[in-house]
């Protein structure tokens, strides 16, 4: 994955200037900045492998211990991670099921006023999420869906749908029209065209969209905090609750934080060359 990114980056660039001090300085600066930005993560990982008393005195080197990771893959953490996986994966699947046909109707066979519809979806993303918190909380209570993961799944689906539609639309616009027209001439209906013709072509885009939706759902805190309790608690809520009111907790906290960050770190790194496109809603390729 990293190799692909390097190749792409290194593709059409200008000629490399002859060696000079300025160029070495810039390379050095780039590396210093990269390490500086990565340092907090290194620090988190370092602290997670220390005893609580070592973690409480800041210094670079300390005795190594894996004790903070004991029991991290069972009990409450496990429940929270499974809930997070459930909420993120289920909502991502729902988003894609709704977004692919919608993006199709907004790009390949545009409906009337397709720009208005597109911007309506986007405007829901601009609304402050917190304004929807109370009504959604009250409605889920009325429906008896308090502390039910499905409430979160529906919220995440609605929250990520605009992003997915915008992103998928930008991928769909790249599908050669002749292919779709040929399939239509052959008498294929919409479902067949979406499943057999379009999906295989936009598979990389679909994967990138899914990853973005997954990342946003996995990291969401505000609604998870309000809509879940003991049963449906997700990873960020568990993490926020894992600081002890008294006593030392830093090393344990860093271990939990590292574990819950890992899926997104891996997913994001794997998709890094598609990340820009997703985050800019398809505007930048």
């Amino acid at each position, binding site marked *: 994955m990293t190799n692909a990114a390097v190749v792409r980056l290194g593709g059409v660039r200008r000629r490399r200037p002859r060696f000079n001090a300025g160029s070495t300085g810039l390379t050095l600066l780039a590396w210093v900045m990269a390490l500086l930005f990565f340092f907090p993560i290194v620090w988190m990982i370092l602290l997670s492998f220390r005893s609580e008393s070592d973690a409480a005195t800041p210094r670079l080197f300390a005795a190594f211990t894996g004790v903070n990771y004991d029991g991290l893959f069972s009990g409450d953490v496990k429940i929270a991670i499974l809930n997070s996986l459930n909420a993120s994966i289920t909502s991502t699947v729902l988003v894609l099921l709704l977004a692919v046909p919608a993006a199709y109707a907004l790009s390949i066979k545009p409906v009337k006023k397709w720009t208005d519809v597109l911007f309506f979806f986007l405007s829901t993303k601009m609304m402050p999420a917190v304004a929807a918190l109370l009504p959604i909380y009250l409605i889920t209570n009325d429906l008896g869906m308090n502390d039910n993961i499905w409430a979160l799944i529906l919220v995440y689906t609605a929250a990520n749908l605009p992003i997915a539609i915008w992103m998928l639309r930008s991928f769909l616009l790249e599908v050669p029209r002749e292919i779709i027209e040929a399939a239509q001439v052959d008498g294929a209906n919409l479902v067949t065209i979406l499943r057999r013709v379009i999906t295989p072509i936009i598979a990389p885009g679909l994967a990138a969209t899914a990853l973005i939706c997954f990342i946003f759902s996995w990291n969401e805190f505000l609604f998870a905090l309000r809509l879940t309790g003991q049963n449906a608690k997700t990873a*960020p809520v568990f993490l926020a609750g894992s600081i002890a009111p008294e006593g030392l907790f830093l090393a344990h906290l*860093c271990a939990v934080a590292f574990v819950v960050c890992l899926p997104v770190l891996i997913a994001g790194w794997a998709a890094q060359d598609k990340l820009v496109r997703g985050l800019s809603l398809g505007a930048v390729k």
Partner: protein
Amino acid sequence: MTATTVEYAPDVAPPRRASPGDSFRARMTRRLPLLPALTFTVVVTQLPFLYTIYISLVGWDRDHPELGKKFVGLKNFRAVFADDSLRSAVLVTVELTAFVVVVAVLIGLGLALLLDRRFFGRGLARTLLIAPFLIMPMAAALLWKHAFYNAQFGLINGIINGVRGWFGNHTPTAWSILTDHPLIAVALPLIWQWTPFMMLILLAGLQSQSGEVLEAARVDGASNWQIFRSITLPHLRQYIELSVLLGSIYILQAFDAIYTITRGISNTTNLPFAIFETQVDSGDYGLTSAEGVIVVIGTIIVATFALRLLSSLFKEGTR
């Protein structure tokens, strides 16, 4: 024809209007794939808003259910406008967003320029640089608060005290970013997380520059600074605008960092946190709803302008 045929469709769909000849059936078939997503979005995002308007017009206090729900008119709205704290929350929101976005764009631009050269290990450097953006915001906030800011075991005060120790001063410093600069304490993790985002968009902009133009300028003897000022910066303008706009959309909603790092004390309550607090702590649902309605109306006004800008960006930006 195979999928490998390189024959790109135009980037922006032609504004194909349904011609008058289109039958009703054809128009419905065209709309059908859109309906599930549209219906879902309207139900999940618009109905709650109607409910919010309703609650804002009736007095509803969670802690006093005996009062019931009765129509109170615009009382809640008057209460919101009479309250200074919401005005200050608006101010904090604008301040925090502007600060984070400006700093993140500037550092992001610097990093993008650094990465837009070929050098040893560039792919790895880029991978390391985007990592902060992939960290869960709640984890980032907790990490900064406890591992960096904490006066006793945080790294920042640890370094300050270490340096003081070299100079023979062994009393720990009384300074703490949490008490002395709480808004900056909230902003730092946000800047740390959003700078990679800005960097990625601006880097994409830099790499879409035409190499020939740059080469020609160089042949004509233009200095690096002249090339940056006259060619790169104008080319980057729309990418900078896009990163500012998208960054603002997300950072206006910042909640996790404030909830975790300061809990809104010492004037760090932004709008999302203020509304959350009214709702959860005071339990005055009517008041919260009025706040929500006002914020949504304010957002619609701001968003109308933002969307206009965005649509022009998307027209030029799709390349």
